[in-house]
């Protein structure tokens, strides 16, 4: 089918995409790397001299960097834990025989379509507000002191909100994977007297393993870049309690106008994301061969 002429035509058809993506990748990326070696501040013109690794040195030794790395780790780790375990549970539950399964599935998946700024503000004001929020009222109604979510447990509150957004994603993917499980195998195991726990550990979980890995890798890519939820709820505070790496870079570059410092942070963020991306790409690549 592939003649010489059609090959040439194919190349012509692919080239716009390749050129655009190449530009989108190479131009900003090389500029980030270039800026990261300059003393470059938008409000104090310094002539932008080359300063070597200075920006990296100051960025990494700043106490807020350590805080941001820990927060990033806690955010990603906490949300992954909640969404994958919750997702497996929801996928198993939705697979049970029931009435109105379609409606229930829609209700579970809905939060994924809510834009980040809406979900963050709704949880912050309507639920987590200590006075008028539903959680606050429930606590007061039962005679407890209401929790000031964003004052006392700010990072946990953000983990909770973002988990609500991503649990549907994990559920949807794991539920799709459940559908391809061989029911006969499961029934055979049951007839042979395998307990529910054993069926879960030795048949269901291994079957889901691949989908779970995909969920973890894709979520990690997105969760490393959590931004809007922090911006509208806590602005990274109190102090640096909810500043993650993405937010820290935003502060240095767009609030303090320190292009050099922000770029050094950007390079670090890219390296971090790439470590995860390598594993994800390998999995997807294997699937392409199959």
């Amino acid at each position, binding site marked *: 089918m592939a003649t010489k002429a059609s090959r040439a035509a194919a190349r012509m058809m692919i080239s716009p*995409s390749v050129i655009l993506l190449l530009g989108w990748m190479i131009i900003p990326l090389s500029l980030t790397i270039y800026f990261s070696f300059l003393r470059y501040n938008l409000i104090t013109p310094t002539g932008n001299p080359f300063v070597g690794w200075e920006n990296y040195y100051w960025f990494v030794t700043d106490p807020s960097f350590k805080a941001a790395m820990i927060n990033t780790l806690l955010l990603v780790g906490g949300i992954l834990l909640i969404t994958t375990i919750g997702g497996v549970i929801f996928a198993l539950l939705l697979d049970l*025989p029931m009435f109105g399964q379609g409606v229930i599935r*829609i209700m579970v998946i809905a939060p994924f*379509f809510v834009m980040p700024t809406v979900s963050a503000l709704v949880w912050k004001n309507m639920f987590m507000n200590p006075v008028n929020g539903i959680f606050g009222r429930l606590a007061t109604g039962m005679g407890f002191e209401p929790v000031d979510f964003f004052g006392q447990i700010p990072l946990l509150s953000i983990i909770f909100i973002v988990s*609500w957004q991503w649990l549907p994603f994990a559920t*949807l993917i794991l539920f799709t994977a459940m559908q391809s499980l061989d029911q006969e195998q499961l029934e055979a195991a049951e007839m042979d007297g395998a307990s529910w726990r054993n069926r879960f550990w030795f048949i269901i979980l291994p079957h889901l393993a691949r989908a779970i890995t995909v969920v973890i890798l894709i979520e990690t890519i997105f969760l490393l870049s959590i931004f809007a939820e922090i*911006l509208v709820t806590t602005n990274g505070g109190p102090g640096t309690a909810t500043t993650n790496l993405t937010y820290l870079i935003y502060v240095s570059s*767009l609030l303090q106008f320190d292009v050099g410092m922000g770029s050094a942070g950007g390079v670090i963020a890219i390296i*971090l*994301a790439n470590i995860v991306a390598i594993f994800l790409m390998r999995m997807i690549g294997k699937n392409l061969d199959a």
Partner: protein
Amino acid sequence: MARAVSNGIKLRNTAIVGTLGFLMFFPILWILILSFKTEEDAIRAPLEVLFSSGWTLESFTTVQERSDYFKHFTNSVVIAVGSTFFGILIAVPAAWAMAFVPAKHTKNVLMWMLSTKMLPPVGVLVPIYLIFRDLGLLDTRIGLVIVLMLMNLPIIIWMLYTYFTEIPGEILEAARMDGANLREEVLYVLTPMAIPGMASTVLLNIILAWNEAFWTLNLTAANAAPLTQFIASYSSPEGLFYAKLSAASIMAIAPILIMGWFSQKQLVRGLTFGAVK
């Protein structure tokens, strides 16, 4: 399941899973209710809100009057539809070529395209911001259309590619044997088979662009602000006006919620790059 399950068990499952599903959905339901209340009623205790207060459309009209909701809605539509439209325009030929005229490097090209999606946006925030400033693209809709189009291009190409590879090549050959020329082949054989896949690609990308909240927040101010930015302006102190915040939120998420329900299945394919089907 092949086995017969008693209605009792089915009812029990429905109750348990239904309750959990309801809890997941509750925040959305709650803002839907609050959006039809007055400000005074909206901050009352939940049970009073439900049972002893009237309903009103006041909040919706106030949101429009005070902050020009429709301007931001239009921005969101232009940005989401525009970026998807141009993305599709560029991606269809590429995906078609890779699916039907695969070459030695096709797989590598696909994987490389995917890798551009792995770049964290914050890593290129500074240069993009400066380039936009110098080109006068900050706070313009065209600027966001360009950025979101480039951001989603790898997903569009991948989705289309996976759909196109599912179209059997034999059918095309058969059409050619029957004397169809290239134009007829594309128009009468390929297009009808490709439409469902294209439709879900379009749908998913409109959803992703509509909800995108990194570039839209960082590159817009007053003029080109889409709904993500518009809602962010409620962060304080307007957030304490529950009814207005709810009305604004409902208007911002309703169109996408409806589209999302139609595209659940395609979502899995699009977001996992075909790794889970």
